[in-house]
């Protein structure tokens, strides 16, 4: 049995190394909700499903299993905040639990990396799914001290829900888990055309062909711009990066003039639970640096009055 109300916090690459504010926020939220967050010492890249699985599926599984072993040693389920990390670790974990042949093969190779053996004792979770289903909109209400009044374009990304038969979270054609959750934070989700398409960064495409990646992203931004949200809300630091650098790129190269703040679910929830805006870290980001989360004090008072 894994420890209850405890997570092995899997950082991945982009969050600690580019968007530490998301890390800060996630810790803040989970700890306020009464979870203990354990460090996964010596963890590495998940490794990213698009690139590393493309090169060598076996090695991808081995490196992923190594991370899983670290959490198994901590006796805690893994919490990820990134669709890529979630995709990799959830998939490998599930696959190795089911496939004995591959489990043996991977364990054989794991020995070369150190004292690791995949046991299959833990689960892998994503913060959006923990918040959306485990805490739930009903459970977060007691914890929030600010309600916003913000229109958000929600981007789910691909690997949080797909492949649905492996993730088993929700239909990928019309998910509502994040909308339902953030509604209580005062977020109005605005639907836009082709909302569920990819941001264009995955599968190693961003590294392989920036142009192609930006063409896909440009279309996406056009559709978002059509509905003029206040913020773009994501659940993955890689999508986050794409929305950040992508807007910048389009502004510089395609004559666009976008400045939509890009906010990860953890950042948003942390803010609503009382973390100062300074720690949300918009000042470090490329877009929406001047964005102020609407009238927090007023809402705070209202909340208190109630």
């Amino acid at each position, binding site marked *: 049995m894994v420890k209850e109300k405890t997570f092995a916090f899997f950082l991945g*690459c982009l969050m600690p190394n580019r968007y530490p504010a998301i890390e800060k926020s996630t810790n803040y939220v989970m700890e306020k909700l009464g979870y203990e967050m354990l460090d996964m010492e010596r963890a590495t890249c998940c490794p990213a499903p698009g690139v590393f699985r493309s090169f*060598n599926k076996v090695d991808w599984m081995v490196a992923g299993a190594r991370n899983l072993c670290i959490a198994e040693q901590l006796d805690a389920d893994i919490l990820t905040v990134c669709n890529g990390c979630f995709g990799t670790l959830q998939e490998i974990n599930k696959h190795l639990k089911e496939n004995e042949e591959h489990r043996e093969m991977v364990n054989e190779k794991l020995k070369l990396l150190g004292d690791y053996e995949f046991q299959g004792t833990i689960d892998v979770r994503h913060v959006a799914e923990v918040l959306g289903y485990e805490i739930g909109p009903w459970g977060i209400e007691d914890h929030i001290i600010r309600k916003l009044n913000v229109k958000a374009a929600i981007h789910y990304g691909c690997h949080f829900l797909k492949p649905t038969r492996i993730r088993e979270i929700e239909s990928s054609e019309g998910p509502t888990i994040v909308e339902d959750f953030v509604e209580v934070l005062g977020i109005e989700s605005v639907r836009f055309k082709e909302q569920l398409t990819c941001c264009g960064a995955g599968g190693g495409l961003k590294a392989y062909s920036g142009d192609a990646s930006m063409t896909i992203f440009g279309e996406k931004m056009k559709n978002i711009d059509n509905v003029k949200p206040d913020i773009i809300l994501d659940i993955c630091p890689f999508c986050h990066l794409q929305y950040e650098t992508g807007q910048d790129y389009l502004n510089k190269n395609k004559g666009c003039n976008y400045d939509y703040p890009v906010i990860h679910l953890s950042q948003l929830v942390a803010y609503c639970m009382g973390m100062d805006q300074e720690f949300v870290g918009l000042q470090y980001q490329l877009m929406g640096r001047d964005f102020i989360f609407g009238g927090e004090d007023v809402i705070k008072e209202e909340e208190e009055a109630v």
Partner: protein
Amino acid sequence: MSETKEEHREYKTDEDFDRAFFKDIERKTNIWQCIQCGTCTASCESGRWTALKTRSIIRKVCLGDLTVLKDPDIWLCTTCYNCYERCPRDVRPTDVIMELRNYATKLGNISPNHRAVVGYLQKFGHAVPINDEVRKRRVELGLEELPPTAFKFKQEGDDKDLKKFEEHLFDLPPVEDKEEKKEKKEEK
């Protein structure tokens, strides 16, 4: 398959194909069930804007057309899984493309950028390594300057994890001159 021959003729013969080559893919996925309906291409977010035509890639694998391994299009997939979700015959095109990339990598058909990413993983344990600016930000946010990942241990002199990564994982074939030049041309 000789390349010079190909340039001169439109038709192909059995010698141009090697159906046995993709036996492994046949085993792992359902390519032979493909009815060429095009749902995958139509679903493909990349294919709408790029040269990637998922259906025709599947077709080439069915035929045993090895040129697909040199086809840069296979690297345009974003692994969005739309095709995988919607294929009416459960062919799992995303998995097929991943397998193809594995083959292509073995043959050395891998872009310099991707090579670099592998290098980062082996050197830093991360596909995206940390930089000085972010170190500073981390401190400002009240986080530890370095996250407790393998890289931190390397910095502290404990290099065994990443050494082993380099030794045992993602061993890429050496760069061939010709290939590299070609790749570079394409980049431009």
